[in-house]
């Protein structure tokens, strides 16, 4: 099992980012800051209809506008966007490309949601490009549309794809995804009481502050693409497949990007549209998405409907858990549509049926812990409810029922009990929780809620190269991009620690496929573990060379690389967390204010305490936004999206934000780079459940729909 962490020299010490000065002086160059000689500006025309067939597009007036260099549509640019619909969140690959029946193009006909791309223009000036869009005449045959997953499955629902509205998977199968553990019927038969409840959750945008953009530049048969990407290696593979190129013909560059939160570990349609326009015009093309373009482009967390049925004995032992879930994927199945959370319980009898459904809303993509926060909200709401109905403390109910290591499934280490106990103490759970929910007198009611999680911290393959010159300067080449967590700095710290030199002796080269080897990409919170392990092994290889040959002299360099594929030999490797929150609900206004928030995490050894803490604080706040505010609402009559911006979706501002208290339990389980685990995604998982449970504890009202907005709260309180 785990050992207490031994202090290290670089790792574990607060370390400013290696690129910190560039970030505070305006010198950090993001994609849209780049300019190339002769660069054109591009804009995209989008469907105003939720579902329509394009009869005819007349681009003649737009094409005639002086300064317009290219206008492309589905008739002239038949480019597959494979990663836009890989049917289930798998990385697009040749096998999927060959067999999928779900073809998505950069321009589709029919268009299947408001915002589906219809045409694109490249011109010498961005204003000209915008005006050219207004000159494109599109003759639409408007088709019936459907917005809600359950309605989309009705026999008379409008068909979004010929095969029907139940999403295809990567093998073109069209059936609910079922996981069935133990004997669900026997589990319910063994229960003294059975509880059921339906929950639903809204669509949440990644809403990264940098709108999508791409700068594409063909030189002969080689494409250089500057783009905000979380995974330059994956993006390059995707571009090559979609455009019929070899990988070596594509170079992807990303040195700074304005957030991602999960959407961008594949290529984007903006990348392909820019590349196509650049091909047509023989000039570099900068495609800029407007905020609305970005909002209606592929985004974040899919809306869900979750119907739970849970059996318990009178002593509070869960005997059966059943979930029938529906996920609204939009008209293309970019991702799996998962609803996680059942697996956090030890109960052996678990049945989950998950139906991803096509709708005429915008496409759901990936958002930080894609399957977890909404699922954990659902399952931990009903479990919290059951605990109170049985007269139990939800913490005691959890400790009785949460998953633990078994002989069949050992863990590399297990910290959930320790996380929960630390949280109970730090938060003062016994004092803050109302034994009788809603028992505060008066209109302002306080209450406390709790939630818990474990999240994969698996090992895997990535690559790194390190070299040293005669001046004893070390250079690390890693194919990471820095979405915000600080990957460049983290990789440099791991290298410095492994080399036994100060971080100032190490240069980190990243974000360029021509210079850096494969990295898994900034998704799944895998970079620190996987690319970090590659850094450790590359350094070890370098040290073997130095031991054998001595340090290089003159113009010589020593170069070492590694592509390790470590395993845990069948053990589960997880990070752990427990969040405790106190809210104050104003029952007159329906507003919810966070008055205390304590987040406990065990994420192995912490590499950089400051950036680690801020990953958790930021993630918690995003989770609070999901809990209380954020949604993409549609007008049911017209199919038009209504909340397409920061104000309308009501993202948190400085004034909405409480101080988030973060505590790390540090352990070294002997795996990963110096024992490091996962952080970035795990922090967002628990806020919606914890806040919902706290609102129940404060008011006695169980909120069954995310976000828990003022109008929903007032409705429930009425």
């Amino acid at each position: 099992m785990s050992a207490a962490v031994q202090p290290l020299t670089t790792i574990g010490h607060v370390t400013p980012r290696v690129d910190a000065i560039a970030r505070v002086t305006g010198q950090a160059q993001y994609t849209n800051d780049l300019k190339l000689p002769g660069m054109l500006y591009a804009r995209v025309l989008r469907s105003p209809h939720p579902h329509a067939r394009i009869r005819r597009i007349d681009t003649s007036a737009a094409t005639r506008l002086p300064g317009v260099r290219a206008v492309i549509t589905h008739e002239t640019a038949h480019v597959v966007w494979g990663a836009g619909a890989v049917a289930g969140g798998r990385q697009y690959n040749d096998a999927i490309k060959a067999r999928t029946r779900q073809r998505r193009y950069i321009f589709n006909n029919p268009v299947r949601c408001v915002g589906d791309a219809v045409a694109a223009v490249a011109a010498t000036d961005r204003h000209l490009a915008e005006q050219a869009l207004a000159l494109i005449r599109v003759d639409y045959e408007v088709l019936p549309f459907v917005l809600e997953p359950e309605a989309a499955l009705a026999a008379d629902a409008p068909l979004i794809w010929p095969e029907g509205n139940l999403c295809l998977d990567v093998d073109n199968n069209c059936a609910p995804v079922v996981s069935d553990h133990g004997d669900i019927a026997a589990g319910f038969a063994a229960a003294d009481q059975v509880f059921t409840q339906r929950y639903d959750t809204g669509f949440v945008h990644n809403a990264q502050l940098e709108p999508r953009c791409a700068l594409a530049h063909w030189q002969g048969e080689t494409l250089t693409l500057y783009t905000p990407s979380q995974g330059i290696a994956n993006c390059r593979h995707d571009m090559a497949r979609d455009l019929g190129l070899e990988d070596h013909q594509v170079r992807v560059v990303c040195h700074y990007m304005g957030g991602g939160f999960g959407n961008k570990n594949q290529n984007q349609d903006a990348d392909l549209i820019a590349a196509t326009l650049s091909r047509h015009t023989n000039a570099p093309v900068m495609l800029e998405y407007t905020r609305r373009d970005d909002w209606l482009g592929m985004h974040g967390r899919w809306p869900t409907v979750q119907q739970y049925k849970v059996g318990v004995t009178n002593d509070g032992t869960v005997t059966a858990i059943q979930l029938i879930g529906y996920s609204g994927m939009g008209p293309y199945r970019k991702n799996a549509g998962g609803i996680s959370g059942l697996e956090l319980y030890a109960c052996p009898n678990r049945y989950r049926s998950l139906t991803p459904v096509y709708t005429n809303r915008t496409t759901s993509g990936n958002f930080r812990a894609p399957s977890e926060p909404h699922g954990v909200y659902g399952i931990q709401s009903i479990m919290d409810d059951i605990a109170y109905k049985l007269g139990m403390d939800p913490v005691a109910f959890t400790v009785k029922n949460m998953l633990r290591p078994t002989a069949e499934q050992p863990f590399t280490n297990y910290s959930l009990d320790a996380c929960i106990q630390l949280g109970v103490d730090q938060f003062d759970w016994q004092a803050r929780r109302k034994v009788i929910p809603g028992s505060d007198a008066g209109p302002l009611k306080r209450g406390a809620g709790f939630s818990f999680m474990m999240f994969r911290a698996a090992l895997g393959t990535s690559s790194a190269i390190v070299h040293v010159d005669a001046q004893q300067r070390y250079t690390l080449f890693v194919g990471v991009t820095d979405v915000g967590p600080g990957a460049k700095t983290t990789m440099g710290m791991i290298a410095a620690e492994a080399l036994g030199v100060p971080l100032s002796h190490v240069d980190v080269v990243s974000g360029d496929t021509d210079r850096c080897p494969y990295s898994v990409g900034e998704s799944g919170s895998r970079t620190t573990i996987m690319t970090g392990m590659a850094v450790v092994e590359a350094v070890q290889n370098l040290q073997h060379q130095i031991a054998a040959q001595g340090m290089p002299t003159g113009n010589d360099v020593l170069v070492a690389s590694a592509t390790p594929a470590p395993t845990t030999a069948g053990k589960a490797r997880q990070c752990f967390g427990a969040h405790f929150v106190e809210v104050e609900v104003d029952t007159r206004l329906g507003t919810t204010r966070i008055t205390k928030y304590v987040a406990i995490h065990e994420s192995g050894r912490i590499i950089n305490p400051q950036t680690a803490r801020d990953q958790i604080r930021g993630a918690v706040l995003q989770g609070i936004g999901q809990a209380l505010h954020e949604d993409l609402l549609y007008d049911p009559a017209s199919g038009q999206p209504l909340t397409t911006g920061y104000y309308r979706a009501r993202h948190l501002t400085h004034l909405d934000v409480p101080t988030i208290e973060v505590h790390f339990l540090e352990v070294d389980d002997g795996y990963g780079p110096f024992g490091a685990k996962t952080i970035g995604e795990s922090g967002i998982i628990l806020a919606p459940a914890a806040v919902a449970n706290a609102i129940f504890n404060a008011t006695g009202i169980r909120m069954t729909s995310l976000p828990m907005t003022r109008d929903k709260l007032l409705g429930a309180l009425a």
Partner: protein
Amino acid sequence: MHDTSDASSFRHQGTHPPADQHSPSATVPALGSASADAATAALIAPARTGISLTVNGVRHRIDVEDRWTLVELLRDHLDLTGTKIGCDRSECGACTVLLNEQPVYACSHLAVWADGADVQTVEGLARDGQLSPLQQAFIDHNAPQCGFCTPGQLMTATALLNTVPRPDAEQVKQALVGNLCRCSNYNAIVEAVVAAGAYQGGAA
């Protein structure tokens, strides 16, 4: 919706020109109408106005298209790309610059309105290679995550510190309410601005 608090002197100056400055002279042509030819001509050779302004202490005389926003002028024509465009419609604050020492959303301020103005951008915060105390505090407190909102946060906070040298956390939040951070690194940003006030020893 975001900003229900009382007015403060750090409020962004909105999307309208100061009363004493002229409005843009060009009218928007009606595309696709009978005057399409005139409209096309206006698109190809849009009206320009000569303005002069000072940016980070450097004086510029430039003919600007009347449709250019201040952030376009800065980014595309003066090569100051530190100022970012997050929404281009007064929602996020990434484009905040100081116009005559007041924070404004440069995405929603026409370049012609800046005639005669003194503009300060993130590139002007460091002097002689020396970071400002606020910039140093942003580094020390890890205030930038992705960094895209950072220039705007820095500029609004600079305006605050110029007026309130040692703000408390609540004053910082009030002042920065118009600067969104989707990484939601709000706690660190507030800590950095409060610390910058302490670094400055209370002197602006």
